[in-house]
């Protein structure tokens, strides 16, 4: 396979892509996420936030802005389990 530097494995976001985002003026983590889609895959940023923040720190010479809030679920949850949280699913519903 080609010699891409993968910053976000889940969404196939490369270093080249993040550099392009930075060149276009996206120098905070949230904007880079919105431009490239990094951090929106299976791991929800567990692997890629650190890598992207390090690239931003190197390129801008400043501490990176705070990351986006890690979204639930931390791991994938079956929809059948989530469905029970509705009106009639649980043992605590009157």
């Amino acid at each position, binding site marked *: *396979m*080609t*010699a*891409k*530097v*993968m*910053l976000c*494995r*889940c*969404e*196939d*976001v*490369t*270093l*080249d*892509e993040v550099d*392009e985002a930075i060149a276009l003026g996206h120098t905070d983590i949230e904007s880079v996420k919105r*431009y490239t*889609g990094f951090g929106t*895959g*299976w*791991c*929800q*940023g*567990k*692997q890629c*936030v*650190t*890598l992207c*923040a*390090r*690239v931003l*720190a190197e390129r801008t010479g400043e*501490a*990176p802005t*705070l*990351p986006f*809030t*890690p*979204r*639930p*679920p*931390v*791991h*994938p*949850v*079956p*929809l*059948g*389990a*989530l*469905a*029970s*949280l509705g009106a009639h*699913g*649980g*043992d*605590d519903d009157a």
Partner: protein
Amino acid sequence: MAPRRIDARELPAGSALARRLAQIEKVARAVTLEHDGTPVEARAGEPVALSLAAAGRLTLARSPKYHRPRGAACLRGDCDGCLVRAGDQPGVMACRLAADSGMKLTSQNAFPTAGFDVFAVTDWFFPKHLDHHRLMVDFGDAVNRTMQVFARRMAGSGTLPELPTGVVPHRTRDVDVLVVGAGRAGLAAVETLAREGLSALLVDEEPAPGGAQRDRVDLAPERPTVSVDAMFDATAAATYANETLVVQHGAITRVTCRARLFATGTRDVIPAFARNDLPGVVTARAFARALTWGVLLGERVVIVGPAATGARVNEVLRALGVKTVYAPDGEVVEAHGATAVRKVTVREKGATAEHRCDVLVCADEPVPAYELAGQAGAGLAWDHDRRCFAPRSDDEGATERDGVYVAGTVRRRMSDEQRSDDGVRVARRIARDLRGSR
């Protein structure tokens, strides 16, 4: 040269790992799984990702855009590497799935198989990157719609079950303190909370307590006792307001509590270098975890990075007679290989060298697993030394959000003893705060 199983007799008698493996071998039960139609021999209870690796099946899926091969990289549920379809359930992490007789596993997002995928041509067609966002907006509505259909076909996350699975009822629990993470800090904390007369629920993703110790190839097996209520194999999947959703075996428990303590430890990160996503590129703790299950992920191993796990793994490999290149002060420039790592370029002390290998072990210092604490409202700060984010807390683990605490290595680097001490310290603070709020 391929991954293989090792047994206790190959290691120095009485060594920590030999004792671990002897224990596993004593109770091992052989089972047969099926992966993409091929039978795979396994041991009941071991992570399926390791059963497959031991059978030489490293490539388990394809990535969404470029269809690059994907294989297990962290073995701790922190990456996308080992997703499989298990039975009719898509998107199952094979590293968190215990092997059992008759399991049917299929690779996802690959045409026709993960080993050979015709769509890998996208990887060559877009050698730097494919900006699908721009392709979708720059060429009008019709192109956009076509691209959407194409993207969905290309980037599936497996096929849905044929039949609805039905609603799985949830349970509820109410405790004084929810403790997430059963490593040294979490275990010490729940003991202290019990002594302080508080009810606690301990939750951990692993099947047994021990935390980071479970992957230590230099420590004899031990199973810490847990005297409080505990849920293992259970993920604290979401936490908000005063409620935390814990998912265990596909069912949710809604936990309400007065305080939440996150002793979630650290994660491993594979650094940025060319082809850092090749199957066979793994974290040091992943390699160590495989060893503790008696699986050697490769016969020619390059270990790069300063983390202690790298040195420990290197020592075990030398004892096994496995050829290693160990570069604690080095950095990886590039990994090479078509579908699995075959060679790696390493820069160390100003010199660059190429090493043939079938596994590259990245022994970078782990980073705080801050996600849950962050979700709960703890503030984060950039740690300049470690170049990562960490939750902000005072000396006693209190964060800026009332009722949210952190303990152990999620806060900062700590020795084994410091982790226990920290658990005690933070638990005492929680007890004090809860008494004050009564």
